[in-house]
């Protein structure tokens, strides 16, 4: 879910940024903060250097006071949720491993990573850890076999970092349709509305539309990449990481809105530019 206890949020903010303003110390542990991951782009690409005054955010139409905007400095929790079903084998598996290795190679000190694989079996192949080598080893050992539990795998990916206060990027790769999940797409999309994880999905183009991946990316403020081939999968993975690092993490205390239910979010950059953020959150 989007709302975390401020205690947890501040713990992260103090440790990772070190530039938190004094006013944040007035937060009470009884008050919940909302975090919104935002990408601002203009004709030249991502826009950097923006502060709280440069954003306008409305929660169910009510203008909110932004307390914190962080950029780049927040360590990432990158969770890879990779399709390891029958259809991913041979060269495609090699390319997927290489793409995963590429994104792991792009992580910085303080970042953490985890690996979830899914066929019909969902596995936490490597738990969330700053020891990236462990994740890399697990990735190298992953093999393809079985049918596809895409929805289950995405849910598991969301949960891997749910109890960690870090900023989560969920990278999902699948080349097929879901054929084996227990969980329904609707339920996991409902969970996605409550999750802080931003989902970037990569789908190999086929006759079937990747509707679930498109929806989960949209609900979390991420993006879906549809690729024709997997030869350059590594560059797509790296592009995702680079884009994610260009995002702002906005935090505010919701005021003047009901606590429960769906909150429609509208985020605007006062200086202009295209803003990409989650469309809302469920509390």
């Amino acid at each position, binding site marked *: *879910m989007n*709302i975390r206890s401020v205690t947890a949020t501040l713990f992260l903010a103090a440790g990772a940024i070190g530039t938190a303003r004094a006013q944040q110390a007035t937060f009470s542990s009884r008050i919940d903060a909302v975090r919104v991951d935002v990408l601002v782009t203009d004709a030249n690409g991502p826009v950097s250097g923006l502060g709280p005054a440069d954003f306008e955010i409305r929660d169910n139409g009510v203008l909110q006071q932004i307390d914190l905007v962080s950029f780049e400095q927040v360590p990432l929790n990158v969770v890879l949720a990779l399709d390891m*079903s*029958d*259809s991913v084998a041979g060269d495609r598996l090699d390319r997927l491993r290489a793409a995963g290795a590429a994104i792991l190679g792009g992580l910085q000190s303080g970042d953490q990573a985890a690996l979830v694989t899914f*066929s*019909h*079996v*969902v*596995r*936490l*192949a490597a*738990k969330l850890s700053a020891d990236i080598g462990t994740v890399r080893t697990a990735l190298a050992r992953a093999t393809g*076999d*079985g*049918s*596809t539990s895409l929805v*289950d795998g995405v*849910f*598991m990916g969301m*949960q*891997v970092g*749910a*109890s960690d206060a870090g900023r989560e990027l969920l990278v999902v790769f699948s080349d*097929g*349709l*879901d*054929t*084996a999940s*227990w*969980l329904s797409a609707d*339920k*996991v999309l*409902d*969970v996605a509305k*409550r*999750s802080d994880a931003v989902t970037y999905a990569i789908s190999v183009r*086929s*006759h*079937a*539309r990747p509707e679930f991946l498109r929806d989960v990316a949209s609900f979390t403020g991420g993006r879906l990449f549809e690729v024709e081939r997997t030869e350059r999968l590594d560059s797509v993975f790296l592009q995702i990481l680079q884009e994610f690092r260009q995002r702002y993490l906005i935090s505010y205390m919701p005021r003047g809105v009901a606590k429960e239910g769906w909150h429609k979010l509208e985020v605007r950059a006062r200086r202009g530019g295209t803003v990409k953020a989650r469309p809302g959150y469920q*509390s």
Partner: protein
Amino acid sequence: MKSLATALFFVATTLSARTPLDARGLDDPGSRVARIEWWLNATFEHDPGTPDTTVVDISGWSTADLEAFRIDLRVFVQLMRDPRLSSFKTPAKELDCIDCFAARRDVTQARLLVPERRIHYTDAQLHRLKVLACAAAGTVESVDCVGLHADREIAGGLRQLAARTTAARRGGDDSYVLRRAALLHTDVAMVTAHSLRPVDTSATDAEPSVRVHMVDGQAAGVGVGEIHWAIGRDLIDAIRPRPDAMARLWYVATSAWMQRDQQYDPGHLQRARELFPDDASIAFLSGTHAETFASPGIQSALKTAVLPTGLTLRMGNESSELKTAEAMLQRAVQIDPSFPEAHVHLGHVLLARGKPQAAVAELAAVGTPDPLLRYYADMFLGAAEEALSHPDAARAAYERAAALFPRAQSPLLALSALYARRSDRGGATKAIGSVFDLPQDAESRDDPWWRYTTVQGRNAGDLLDRLRAPFLHAAER
């Protein structure tokens, strides 16, 4: 039969050139009559369920062989009933059947129109067919067959066959050969389930068996499959009088086998329902068939299969298949209210059709100690209670399922999602932690959800054993 099918598939592939007779078309009736004679002997020699040379040889027949054979077989069966017949033709009909095949590969057939055809034999060929028919029917001593001098014109194995069929007829069964032959072609159909030949849509004079192979929800190939199931149905259809207990068991056992091995053939069950409209097992298997067709793994065929021009999949969308499934499963529980597995599947279908209240009522009626069925019932009950906004009842149901199969991931995922949707992060984390702790290798996991679409066929082996038992050579001696 699983191991037989696997082993024989390989043998049949490597020995496909060893057909007992030259592959010749309808312009060579002499060869075709000889093939019927060879087949009749082979039918008698074959031990049902055994990977013998008969199965290997027949599995190597070409498509043209099989098409011609099926026509001759229809004539032959008519002659078994009335050796005085002298004019034959195949009726025009629209064909529509769907097959599927195993190891997560599913096969779907399309429909084509087959025109009427007249069948020609020389007098000598027709005479020989009649003599063979007399032996097969156990009627060599009948007036018509005596007039044909049938008794004098058969020897060796055929004479033994005639003695056996005559004894069976005296015992009240004049369909002995038809039964054995159906079992033979059943074995060949199982062995050749994986074969696929290029589609020739111009060949409208033959019955096609167009199939779509699927791997992991994606169409992996389109081709023509074997028609041994259709031949088996022809033979079972010819058994008299109706209804026949073996015919019923044949349909139940083979349908269960098909669903267990993911080879779906709506035409198979359609014929079964026509013959046995009040049979709970056939209604049940028809329901589970439609339920499976509504599943994502099969529905994806609609999205990913690229069929040759003129062919369409004979498969409804998810909604229509679920509607069919509900009707069939309702019929099954109406015929047999104490059919727990039918209640389980009906509960699942009702849930999928957006009727959680009805699903709860149905699943509550599942009174069985079978842990497998209880697992499914609890999982579906949990989902139905969730849909009714009864989280505590849902949690209890999922927890019961988790207790039944501790190495299953689905109940734990369901619990975690249930907590997560209630914004209970602690509960969600604890439940997902249990998934993290499950064994990494698939072999050590045990989640019945993974085999839900095939579980109704889990007794196929026992059913086939029962079906074959009276015809095993050891039993007949």
